[in-house]
Each structure stands twice: as structure tokens, then as C-alpha cells.
């Protein structure tokens, strides 16, 4: 009977992983819809192709080699066959693989509307096979960074990946945008930023709600256990705090834009929600509900300023605001951990953020430059003008609507 009980725990934990993983997988749809809503209609089919393609690539490359690099388990998962100690190792892989895809999804939005599709896919292959798994190994798997030092020893803590997943994705995106340059027409002759409105706000909002929902899996699953009172309580608090932070992010962003510009800019409310979620991701387990809401609210404020500063001051053209939402706010999330978690230190968080930044930015930059040299990463000016849907995908997203 004891055995049966242990099996039940095994079963419940495995089930919990699978359900949480399915929610994270659902985030792939969220990113697709968010990005499809925030680009112009002439670039919509391409960004959809990019998103479903990158998800498939991430799932495949992580299976081939990424998971092995990050956690062991064998090339092509040959150590994974649906067994395991406390829960099925297949469930663990399933849960981990959707995280890789999330990191990769972040990149696609920032470089939208001007990049060659297959150059992006080539980047995705390397990022999901090597770049992400390496830094994942140093953090969540506790490996020493190039055998030199362990981040955990320095007091680094990133519960569900504000830094490891979100900031990493944003840093890869930043490198891409720097190599790629801004969209034609984004900056006028005087260098003034011009607004390029996205084509479909309901899609963007749907995407945000999908991400909000999926994030319960992202953070909730990162407790990594459910079948005891303690872990069940922990998962419940993580759900509660994740929701509170997202709500705080929306309210803060909405009030701020209303004060600044007199209008309740929907896109900022959406980014505020995501910023709240990114901000809490590094430590959804330790704050109280109020603290979580405030951490999210600071994220919501940050994202509004960050989007504007990156756009107007640094001329970094990020059509969906991914670098601000996931990068700047991801860093904030890391730095907020020591406020409520005595196990983490500011210096440790900075060390971790620095390590992730240097590794991901360096390798990504090299990779983008190689791709640029080898196959080119930017579509021609004419293709960009007519839209990448026609040039890359050969079809239109809304053939009957657009003009």
C-alpha cells in the first residue's frame, strides 16, 4: 500500500507537470497572436509562419541535443523513456521543452517585418540547440559556468526564468535588431520615430490573455512538485502572485499612459500585463500578494518608459516591445528577488544577469553576423515595402481586407 501511495504521488506530480506544460505550450499561440496583431497586415502571414516554425524547431532541437546539454538525458533523449524517480522524466522534458520555445518566441517579435524567414530559422536552430541550453545548465542545473564558478554560490536565484528565459530571449533579440537595423520608414530624415500601428488589436489582446493564462503553467510548474502539502501551498501562492503581478502591471501601465498622454493606449495595457508577469517570474514564491502586485506594477511603469526610450533615444526598432517587456523588465524581475527572498543577493542577481547577458549577447551577435555574411538576414527594400508575406510566404494574411 505504501507503494501505491508513492505511485500516486508520482502520478500526481507527473500529471501536474503535464498540465502545466500544456499551459506553457499554449503560450506559443499567445506569442503568435500578440505578434500577428502588432505587425502590419502585409507582414502577418510571415510572422505566423515564423512562430509556428520556431516552435517546431525548438521542440526538435531541444530533443536532439538541447536537453542533453542542459540537464543530461542523452542525445535524442535516449535516456528518456517515461520513467523517473519522483515524476516521469518524459513529463520533465515536456515541461522544459516548452520553455525553450518561449525564449525563442521572444526573438521573433523584435525582428519582425524585415528579416528573412530562413535566416531566422537558422538562428532558431542554434539558439535552441546550444545557446539557451548552455545558460540553462549554468543556472537551473547548477553547472559551473565554463567550469569556473557556480552562479548559485553567488546567491543567484531565478525561480521560473525572468532572466534565464525572458531576458535571454530579449538579449538575443537585441543583438538581432542591432545587426538588422530599423524598419524602413520607422525613423524620418530627422531621426524622429514614427508610429507604425499594428493591424489587429483583438488578436494582440487575445495573445496577451493566452500568455497570461499560460504563465500560470510557466510559474506554477516551476515549483516542480505538487504532491505534498508544502508544495501544493507553494504552487497556489505562485498562482496567486502571478495573477496579482499581472494585474498590477496592467493598472500601473494604464494609469501612467493616461497621465502622460491622456489616452488609455491599449497596447501599453497589454505590455503592462506582460511586464507584470515577466517581473514576478524570477520570484513568484516569496512575496505576499501585495508585494507581488507592486513588483508587477513597477514592471508596468518600467515597460512604458523603456519602450519609449529604446525607440526614441536609442533608435532600437522593436515592433512589439519585446526587448523592453522581456529584457528590461526581466532584469527588474531578477533584481526584485532579494527584496522578498533572503536566499538571493543583489550581487548574485547581477552576476547571473551579467553572465546571461554576456553569453547570450556574444554568441547571438556572432551568429547573426555569420548569418548576415552567409545568407543575408534582411529582405530587400522592395520586399519590405510590399510586405514579407508575399516575398517569404507567397500568400497574404487577409487577402480580402487589406488595401
Amino acid at each position: 500500500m505504501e507503494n501505491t501511495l508513492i505511485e500516486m504521488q508520482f502520478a500526481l506530480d507527473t500529471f501536474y507537470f503535464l498540465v502545466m506544460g500544456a499551459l506553457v505550450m499554449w503560450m506559443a499561440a499567445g506569442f503568435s497572436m500578440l505578434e500577428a496583431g502588432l505587425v502590419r497586415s502585409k507582414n502577418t502571414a510571415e510572422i505566423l509562419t515564423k512562430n509556428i516554425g520556431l516552435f517546431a524547431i525548438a521542440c526538435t532541437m531541444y530533443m536532439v541535443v538541447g536537453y542533453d546539454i542542459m540537464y543530461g538525458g542523452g542525445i535524442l533523449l535516449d535516456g528518456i523513456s517515461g520513467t523517473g524517480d519522483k515524476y516521469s522524466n518524459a513529463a520533465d522534458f515536456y515541461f522544459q521543452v516548452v520553455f525553450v520555445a518561449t525564449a525563442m518566441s521572444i526573438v521573433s517579435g523584435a525582428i519582425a517585418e524585415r528579416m528573412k524567414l530562413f535566416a531566422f530559422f537558422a538562428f532558431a536552430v542554434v539558439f535552441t540547440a546550444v545557446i539557451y541550453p548552455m545558460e540553462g545548465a549554468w543556472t537551473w542545473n547548477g553547472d559551473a559556468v565554463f567550469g569556473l564558478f557556480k552562479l548559485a554560490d553567488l546567491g543567484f536565484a531565478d525561480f521560473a526564468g525572468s532572466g534565464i528565459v525572458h531576458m535571454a530571449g530579449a538579449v538575443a533579440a537585441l543583438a538581432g535588431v542591432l545587426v538588422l537595423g530599423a524598419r524602413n520608414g520607422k525613423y524620418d530624415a530627422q531621426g524622429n520615430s514614427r508610429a507604425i500601428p499594428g493591424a489587429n488589436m483583438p488578436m494582440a489582446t487575445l495573445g496577451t490573455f493566452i500568455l497570461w493564462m499560460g504563465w500560470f503553467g510557466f510559474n506554477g510548474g516551476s515549483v516542480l512538485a505538487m504532491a505534498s502539502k508544502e508544495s501544493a501551498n507553494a504552487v497556489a501562492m505562485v498562482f496567486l502572485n502571478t495573477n496579482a503581478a499581472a494585474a498590477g502591471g496592467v493598472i500601473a501601465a494604464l494609469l501612467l499612459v493616461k497621465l502622460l498622454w491622456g489616452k488609455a493606449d491599449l497596447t501599453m495595457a497589454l505590455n503592462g500585463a506582460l511586464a507584470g508577469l515577466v517581473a514576478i517570474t524570477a520570484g513568484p514564491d516569496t512575496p505576499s500578494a501585495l508585494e507581488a502586485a507592486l513588483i508587477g506594477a513597477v514592471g508596468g511603469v518600467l515597460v512604458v518608459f523603456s519602450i519609449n526610450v529604446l525607440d526614441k533615444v536609442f533608435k532600437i526598432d522593436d515592433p512589439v516591445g519585446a526587448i523592453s517587456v522581456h529584457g528590461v523588465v526581466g532584469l527588474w524581475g531578477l533584481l526584485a528577488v532579494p527584496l522578498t527572498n533572503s536566499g538571493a543577493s543583489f550581487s548574485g542577481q547581477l552576476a547571473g544577469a551579467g553572465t546571461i547577458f554576456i553569453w547570450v549577447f556574444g554568441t547571438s551577435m556572432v551568429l547573426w553576423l555569420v548569418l548576415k555574411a552567409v545568407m543575408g538576414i534582411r529582405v530587400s527594400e522592395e520586399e519590405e515595402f510590399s510586405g514579407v508575406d508575399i516575398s517569404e510566404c507567397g500568400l497574404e494574411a487577409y487577402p480580402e481586407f487589406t488595401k
Partner: protein
Amino acid sequence: MKMVTAIIKPFKLDDVREALSEIGVSGITATEVKGFGRQKGHTELYRGAEYTVDFLPKVKLEIAIIADQVNSVVEAISTAAKSEGEGKIGDGKIFVSSLEQVLRIRTGETGSVAL
């Protein structure tokens, strides 16, 4: 025959159409157009960057009529399309040009009977 072309505010379309049918005009072709004129567009805001939408949605009506009707048609349109009171910038314009020939495809009739 004449072709009367009127540029009006979109929400005046129903009123104008009614006014025209009251004076016996039975055919109109309407097109959605964008107008640039004295009336200025408005500023929209997207993620903190302002941008000006400097065209304004207008409706263009084309009405082919016999020459005798020009005055009554122009008056009907201008009365119905004018904003209450003094009129407002952007109420629109009416253009008249001459039309040499008309043909009704269904019957092959030409000239004023084809209108």
C-alpha cells in the same frame, strides 16, 4: 447631360441620398475616398509615438443627370450635406462636368432615358 460629383462627410450620406431621391434622382454611385483639404486630420497615439492621420474619410457621390436638373441636384446635395448652423470646414465640395454619352448596359438605351 452632366456629371455631378460631390465630396461629403460620410455620416451625411443617408440624408443626401434621401434628399436626392425626393427630387427624383434614381441613380447614384458612391465611393469611399480620403480627403485632404482645409479641415485637418487628427493625431493618434501608438505606444507613445504620435502620428497624424491627415486624410479624412469622405464619401464621393457621382450622379449623372440631364442638364436641366443640375441646379436642383446641387442645391439638394448642398442643403443636405451642410452641417447644422453655419456649416463646418470639411463639409465638402460639389463639382459639375459635362457628360457626352450614357448607356444602360441592360437595355442598350442611350442618352437621358438611360439615366
